[in-house]
């Protein structure tokens, strides 16, 4: 009983860490929305919040640089239930009340070589692979947020499962290989398959290996090194977010770089919000013309223009991959977190919840002057609700760390 209970708790907890989708601010909402819509690897590159590796490995890294003896246990996917049990209560207390269990996005597109490592892993409801090596002290010392970020083997995998696990990109100066989550042995064999497939293409290049937050041992790094050598590649640099891997690479005498954005940071960056990823999108392709009304409960994505005289109404967010010049009403059911996003925001009227507004116009008798002026400010913009006021910002200022962050 207790075992399953603990498992559930962890699952929920894991969801919390997968809470990259739970938007903190509007920019997060946009990013997550776009990430959910596009199956592109590069999208995840930019999202700093995601733990790039499963928490199997995260655990050992958060807990500290454990010595190489204990870590292998975590990779074998052993159901160390007893340890979970001991961990469960602490975990439980760390769960914020706002955290809700997530449902996986439907039908993950598999990578080309469709033998997706770790696929079976996603099907298991309980992340039994997670085994903290030294839970008591670690849990006691680590901040709450970092704890919540730790355990998400299943859910983070689910949230990310639209990505390819291994990405190989040709660069002018060599090859960039990114390795995502999954079991190391599987990943290694898949990497081998894909590299040998294209070995002629890659031969002689230098490799920038991005391992994300996955902690690796010296032996494992040597495996990659040997594998690359076998197909005629030279391991140039190892990029990692894990201290452990960084150390291992140093020990092997490899050129390496420790990048920020480890688990603690990613966990701190997330906040509790409504669980957005369970909601649906409605995609409209084409232009919405004068007199046309698009009203949906789902989030609306318009791939096209919304012309003056047209209306878009959604209980969720509104995204316009084009020009928004009509009327947009987001969060029509009272969702204050709703945002309106458009490439070219020049609407007749905007509304989020029951707060309406319009783009302030300069008092001028000449529409033409306005037309000219508008063309200057032609950046994608985001509209969100700040208290009782609509805020309109260019998207790049609205990001965390954007210019607007300094003004606030």
């Amino acid at each position: 009983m207790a075992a399953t209970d603990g498992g559930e708790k962890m699952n929920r907890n894991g969801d919390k860490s997968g809470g990259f989708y739970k938007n903190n601010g509007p920019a997060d909402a946009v990013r997550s929305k776009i990430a959910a819509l596009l199956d592109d690897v590069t999208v995840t590159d930019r999202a700093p919040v995601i733990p790039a590796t499963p928490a199997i490995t995260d655990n050992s890294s958060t807990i500290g640089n454990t010595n190489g003896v204990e870590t292998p246990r975590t990779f074998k996917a052993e159901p160390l239930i007893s340890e979970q049990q001991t961990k469960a209560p602490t975990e439980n207390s760390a769960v914020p009340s706002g955290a809700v269990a997530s449902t996986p996005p439907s039908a993950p597109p598999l990578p080309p070589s469709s033998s997706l490592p770790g696929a079976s892993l996603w099907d298991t409801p309980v992340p039994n692979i997670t085994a903290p090596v030294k839970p008591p002290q670690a849990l006691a010392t680590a901040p709450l947020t970092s704890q919540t970020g730790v355990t998400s083997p299943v859910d983070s995998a689910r949230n990310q499962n639209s990505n390819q696990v291994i990405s190989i990109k040709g660069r002018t100066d060599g090859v960039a290989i990114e390795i995502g989550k999954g079991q190391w042995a599987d990943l290694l064999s898949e990497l081998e398959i894909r590299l040998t497939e294209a070995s002629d293409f890659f031969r002689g290049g230098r490799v920038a290996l991005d391992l994300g937050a996955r902690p690796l041992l010296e032996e494992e790094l040597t495996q990659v090194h040997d594998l690359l050598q076998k197909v005629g590649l030279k391991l140039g640099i190892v990029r990692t977010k894990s201290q452990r891997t960084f150390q291992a690479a140093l020990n092997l005498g490899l050129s390496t770089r420790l990048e920020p954005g480890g688990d603690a940071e990613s966990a701190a960056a997330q906040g509790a919000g409504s669980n957005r990823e369970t909601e649906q999108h409605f995609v409209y392709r084409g232009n919405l013309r004068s007199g046309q009304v698009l009203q949906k409960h789902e989030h609306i994505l318009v791939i096209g223009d919304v012309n003056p005289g047209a209306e878009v109404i959604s209980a969720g967010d509104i995204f316009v991959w084009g020009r928004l010049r009509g009327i947009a009403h987001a969060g029509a059911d009272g969702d204050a977190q709703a945002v309106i996003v458009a490439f070219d925001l020049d609407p007749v009227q905007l509304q989020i919840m029951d707060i309406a507004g319009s783009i302030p116009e300069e008092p001028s008798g000449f529409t033409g002057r306005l037309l000219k002026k508008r063309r200057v400010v032609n950046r994608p913009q985001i509209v969100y609700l700040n208290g009782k006021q609509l805020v309109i910002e260019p998207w790049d200022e609205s990001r965390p760390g954007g210019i607007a962050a300094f003004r606030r």
Partner: protein
Amino acid sequence: MAGVVITITSGKGGVGKTTTVANLASALALAGKRVIAVDGDIGLRNLDLVMGLENRIMYDLVDVVEQRCPLPQALIRDQRAPSLHLLPAAQTRDKADVRPDQMQAICRELRQMADYILIDSPAGIEHGFHNVVAPADRILIITTSDVSALRDADKVIYLLERDWKRQPGLVVNRYNSVLARAGEMRGIDDILDILSIDLLGVVPEDKDIVLTTDRGVPAVFNKRMHAAQAYRNIAQRIMGNNVPLMDFRKPGFFKRLTNRFSR
């Protein structure tokens, strides 16, 4: 070869549908095509006035629909261009007196008699609009560059796409290139930005157009007029020829002088 039925419509009134029909029909006829201009604005007939053929009307569209006369007898031949005919609307009847299927039947017959059948459409998007859209092979939207005309054109395009599965072409009428260049008025790019359909031509604003419609001589018959060239270009594009967009600047004194010598 069966003729092509082209309906000219706009949604908003007063943007120049009738003038455009008269000029395009004349231009096509002058280019040697057999053309029939049909006035679809039953009850408010105007096309005959603009073409200067009012005094020769014996029978009209409703007479043909109600079979009081055979179709060829209702056609009025234009003396200025032998291959140009007009099928006038009834002034004393109502739009509800004709049904879309009856218009289709008439146009089926007209297709055998001409290369191009141009239908002038009433303003609005009600019954009369359905009458003229139903038989159309191609549709031209006329708009000016002001807000209300654009808004109505946009709505009409939406209706055409939704109810009739049609992709209309666009003619921008009364385009003031001076104001557009100064940024005071929407330019062609701005108009196309909003409407996003294929542009078939741009007719520059020309105060003399008012005089031509008033006198019943379409501008195309006047070689001097600036706007006439635009109509001739559109006619060429309708015939499938590729004509570059004209220079909207009115030729100045020296240009006209050199033009005269080069002629």
